[in-house]
């Protein structure tokens, strides 16, 4: 039955125009980025490395497909939670506000199965978004700008990732981005289980992410103590995959914390939805 339910869920997700907003937005943004960097990338790069050039000699194809992909991912992954929440925040509450939850919940399927199917459906959608972003950025980046060593500038160091190592790191980055976005998926689903209105979970998810992100960037001692516990702090851990040497323990720590969030959000969602009186 869960397979049938999942098929139905995926059909519903992909029958709705709003599900394609994310894909279209990503395609447009990737195109704009690549066009801008193709036309004016050298000026942009010169601006970025002007201080370095006074001390180092930089040779080779710096403005390559991997750098373009890295820049795109760094910029767009911040916007991804909105695109994810737009669909996943609506999974339970959307059915409630439309009145279809009444019908769904009278079918010979358990409520746990309903959530499981929606979770898998929502996760599949999130995964497709990540693959779409990673695939478009990397595919067009390598096609237009060709491969090369990836130079990553941080505030306190420069990492040079050999071209041969870039592909697996981007793949791993997409996997971690998927885990990060799964935190958003489960968080918005949890809110969705409490609401009969689809706007509330979507807006609340975004508001929480914005607040947590701001708290995470403010260098205030009070906030420094809570930063390690905010899921947004760990959602950008994919960037650590482009450091050399690889900070494995930090990456694993963040992944564990994100999974803890996912499990917590899911447990609350299951508990709430199974116990809930369907009054809508």
């Amino acid at each position, binding site marked *: *039955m869960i397979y*049938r*339910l999942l*098929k*139905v869920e995926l*059909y*519903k997700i992909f*029958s*709705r*125009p709003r599900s394609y907003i994310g894909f279209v937005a990503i395609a447009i943004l990737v195109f704009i980025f690549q066009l801008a960097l193709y036309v004016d990338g050298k000026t942009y790069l010169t601006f970025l490395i002007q201080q370095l050039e006074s001390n180092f000699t930089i040779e080779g194809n710096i403005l390559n497909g991997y750098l373009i992909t890295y820049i795109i991912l760094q910029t767009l992954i911040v916007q991804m939670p909105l695109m994810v929440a737009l669909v996943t925040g609506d999974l339970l509450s959307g059915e409630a506000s*439309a*009145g*279809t939850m*009444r*019908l*769904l*919940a*009278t*079918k*010979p*399927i*358990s409520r746990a199965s309903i959530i499981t199917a929606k979770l898998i459906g929502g996760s599949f959608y999130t995964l497709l978004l990540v693959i779409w972003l990673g695939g478009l950025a990397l595919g067009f980046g390598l096609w237009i700008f060709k491969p090369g060593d990836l130079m990553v500038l941080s505030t306190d160091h420069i990492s040079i990732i050999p071209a041969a190592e870039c592909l697996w790191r981007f793949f791993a980055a997409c996997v971690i981005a998927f885990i990060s976005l799964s935190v958003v998926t489960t968080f918005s689903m949890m809110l969705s289980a409490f609401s009969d209105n689809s706007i509330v979970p979507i807006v609340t998810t975004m508001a929480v992410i914005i607040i947590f992100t701001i708290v995470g960037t403010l260098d205030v001692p009070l906030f420094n103590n809570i930063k390690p516990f905010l899921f947004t702090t760990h959602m950008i851990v994919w960037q650590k995959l482009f450091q050399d040497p690889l900070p494995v323990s930090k990456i694993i720590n963040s992944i564990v914390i994100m999974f803890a969030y996912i499990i917590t959000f899911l447990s609350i969602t299951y508990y709430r939805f199974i*116990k809930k*009186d*369907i*009054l809508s």
Partner: protein
Amino acid sequence: METVIELNKISKSFGAFKAVDELSLEVYKGDVFGFLGPNGAGKSTTMRMMLSLIKPSSGSIKIFGKELNTHRNEIMRQIGCIIEKPDFYLYMSAEKNLLLFSKLSGVSISKNKIQEVIELVGLKGREKDKVKTYSHGMKQRLGIAQTLIHDPALIILDEPTTGLDPQGIIDIREMILRLKNEMGKTIILSSHILSEIELVANRMVIINRGKQVAQGEVTQLLSTQDLILSVEVEDGKTALQKLNGYKKEKFSSLENNTLKFSLSKNEIPELVSELNKAGIKIYGITYRRALEEYFLKLTHQYN
């Protein structure tokens, strides 16, 4: 008689508000069972409990002889329902909606069966249209189609004629009778309109403030042996004096020159004749069955 539904002292509270209060009832196989009550009486809450949308605060529900709590999926496979209003995925066609819900009904359903049900409810030719283009009446028909798609033994319809035009109401009523007479379905039907229940149901329960008021055969509950006769006269007080205690035990009230009597249908001619003899001018006589009168009062309280 085989019992299909058995509610045993079920109650449901929402905070301090008791929506359903120790309600017990039995529905038998082949019944069209009317669930009657004014708005807010607890009809929908009870129906939602029967469909496990709401968990009772106390009491037990047995359907097809099995506890709903422990055999939910097995029971739900044999139930089709419309609760409140039929809502569907508006961005899909009626046919797609039916296909989708049939997949979740636990039995395999052919495309022919879907076409058959679409035809039965009179939506042939519009099945490919998106539901967002449907009128309320069409959605209601689609709702009925959805309840029938998996050939359930029990059909639960919560106010299925709400918002329909007169022809739509007649169509739904005829469909309910066909489901009972030709297909042998057991049907539970809620309404706040007594005449609607009377026209299709053989048994009924009346609830008010979550409590049972009456339950039994419709013909018995709405018997003409127990009428409220209203006689409009020129001057009520004078008429009462002139009657001089006649049928005193049957007299119930005087409201705006209308005398009300509780009596049976065959007592009416005698009363009219007595009023004539006493020289009381009669401007009108109407009667309602006692339960009808009671229900009307209940409804007025809430409107």
